């Protein structure tokens, strides 16, 4: 399920805490719950550097290639969980490249509670001030927003609310040489009104709990997007799909999110996840240095 794949850059399944034998006994919803739990654990107190590359693509001999030079954005992101179960997230992302967009920063407060709208603020030097963004919630009956103009949308990055889906195990199969569960998620009536997908089919690595492929279908049951995960590596004790590619099969454009660096267990001060980080570059750079120093 693609919406669980990318939160703050994480398509992660922690711990490999269960052996394969135990995992085999999981029900479809338990598989998804395990994904959610691990994901939250890893999105808390994280510092990451990501590269988002977007291009028009073509397919030849079952191989995908960019048909043009990709547009590349490099960003640094810091996130932290809040609330009793750490299900609310505060994150700040700063664009490092391209040069024309350097320094653009976005602060986001995402709430797990479906009744609370997410909040975002943007700092643009041309405006000379922090500006609240009318982004709404993933639970509005509106089209989800995209991440920095890429093919990744807020719906793709959403977590939680599993109770709003009917979850079925279609089969056990193989994807790229890995054993996978093929799990179908069908939104219920309420959720369907808020989603652009009528269903998703998720190919989940049995051992690592990493989705290797996700197919997204529209209301006519045509596949409109496909996500592919690769470069699954153990990072900081966590299995991570470091390269996630979202293909839009309608526009023939794709975005790849590559996690160049990702560090969890970072002590992130609450003050860093405020509007000050957007406007006060001296403060931001000083605090970022402190966060980076925790890695070494």
């Amino acid at each position, binding site marked *: 399920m693609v919406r669980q794949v990318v939160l703050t850059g994480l398509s992660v399944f922690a711990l490999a805490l269960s052996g394969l034998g135990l995992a085999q006994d999981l029900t479809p919803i338990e598989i998804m719950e395990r994904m959610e739990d691990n994901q939250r654990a890893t999105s808390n107190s994280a510092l990451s550097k990501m590269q988002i590359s977007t291009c028009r693509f073509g397919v030849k001999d079952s191989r995908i290639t960019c048909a043009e030079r990709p547009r590349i954005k490099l960003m640094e992101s810091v996130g932290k969980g809040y609330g009793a179960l750490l299900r609310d997230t505060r994150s700040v992302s700063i664009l490092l490249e391209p*040069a024309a967009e350097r320094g653009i920063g976005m602060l986001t407060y995402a709430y797990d509670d479906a009744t609370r709208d997410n909040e975002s603020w943007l700092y643009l030097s041309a405006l000379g001030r922090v500006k609240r963004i009318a982004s709404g919630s993933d639970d509005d009956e509106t089209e989800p927003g995209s991440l920095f103009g890429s093919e990744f949308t807020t719906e793709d990055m959403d977590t939680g609310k599993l109770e709003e889906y009917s979850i079925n195990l279609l089969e056990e199969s193989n994807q790229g040489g890995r054993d996978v569960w093929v799990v179908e998620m069908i939104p219920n009536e309420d959720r369907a009104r808020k989603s652009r997908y009528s269903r998703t089919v998720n190919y989940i690595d049995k051992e690592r709990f990493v989705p290797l492929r996700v197919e997204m279908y529209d209301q006519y049951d045509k596949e409109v997007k496909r996500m592919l995960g690769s470069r699954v590596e153990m990072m900081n004790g966590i299995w991570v799909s470091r390269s996630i590619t979202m293909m839009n099969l309608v526009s023939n454009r794709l975005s790849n999110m590559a996690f160049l660096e990702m560090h969890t267990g970072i002590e992130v001060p609450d003050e860093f996840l405020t509007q000050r980080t957007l406007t006060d570059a001296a403060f931001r750079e000083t605090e970022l240095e402190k966060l980076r120093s925790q890695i070494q």
Partner: protein
Amino acid sequence: MSSPSHLFASGVLVALLMATASAQQDDQPLVLDPDVSFDQDFGFDDDLFNAFGDEEDSGPDWLDDFTVRISQQFFGQANNHSVDLAPGFSFPREAELENNRLGINVRYQNAFAPGWLLQASGQARFYWNDDYEYEANHGRIDVEYRINEFFLQRSFGNESVKVGNQTVVWGETVGNSVLDVINHIEFRDLTIIDIEDARRNQFMVVWDHFGEGSTWSTFLNLYPEFNPAPVRGSPFFFEPPFNLPDYVRGDDRFFEIGTQWRKSLELTDISFMAAYLYENQLRYEDPIDGMGNAIPKKNDFVLLGFSANRAIGRLLLNFDLAFSHDVLADSFNIPGTAALASPLDLKKDRIGTSFGFEYAVDNEQSVSLGIQAQKVLDEDEGLLPGQTLVNEGLFGSWLVRYSNTLLNSDLTLSSTLQGDLEGDSLLAMLGVDYTLNDNWSVNAQIISITANSGSPLLFFDEDLRLGATISYAF
């Protein structure tokens, strides 16, 4: 108003909307093989993204602190017509190139030590053949340099202090806030219609205190500056009866000071502000002996303000309120033309509001509306029989913006309509921004102006302005 240019403006707006609707119709999705694949290292150093080349030459680290944009701009008036100033009196407006210039903008930001930051930006302009600056320079290439930002920042604990050239922006309404009055501005020509591009920096000390859930921001401006007079030869320049010199400070020491308290609540930001300021636009009096330079006069006033926003799903509401004590009764909204104002020298109180909304229609499209309305209080008090204010009753402006981003934000189509509340003028702009790659981008604009005798934009009535800018950033 139903002039050809007005019809054109309406036409391009409709065309843009139709193009948008058309672009959004779903095509048949590509049917992908189940086993479609790519290299294992996709996304990193694989050949998918490196197929186009060229590993970046990273160069020295200190270069990372610089951002440079080089741009060449062409802009001109394209409609041969005449403007009727009064019955039986009109003057011709020939199609001509107004801007042919190369610009270099450099920005530098360096956090050189913990808690310290140096930030600077500047620009150079080279005015080529047929640019109005070239003509004003007696047919010679003219070069102009300017430092914009240049400040040193020290952040420690909950405090931050910035000293140097910078801007201070108040208000929530983008484009025409009644609270955005601290920086002086320069609308040199009609290629600049956004206030964000027209603001100029001043030498200030700004102290921010980041408290628990709220922020205090205080500025002290020891060298207040004023809107520059229109540059000779520019579209906004009209031969005045007297020269319009800069303000001569001499031993006159004056300052501006203000503070703002801002708090973010869930889905809402609010702020209160108070300031002692000088009006950005100088008021010119006729020279005493009737010849030579006009006499520039400055005017101080007190501003009290409140601003707020409220997010409701994809709708963001904005509201600004300003009370100005002791402002000059006669002032125009368009800078540079105040020199033509009537010689009324009277201080008044003024109340103003700007409000509007921004609505994200979907992933790609957004619409915003801003309305600014002001009223001079006790209008008639102090007027001699027969005297009237230039701005009587409610006056102000409105602004509508629409933008549509396509191709993962590489292509942005935008449209702006701007007018005054009295319906005396309408400015319509259609813009296209296309990003070719990480370095190159192209911008094109079409601007149509309609105005009647009630508006200072009358001189631009039926103008149709076309322009293009190509930029390289690194």
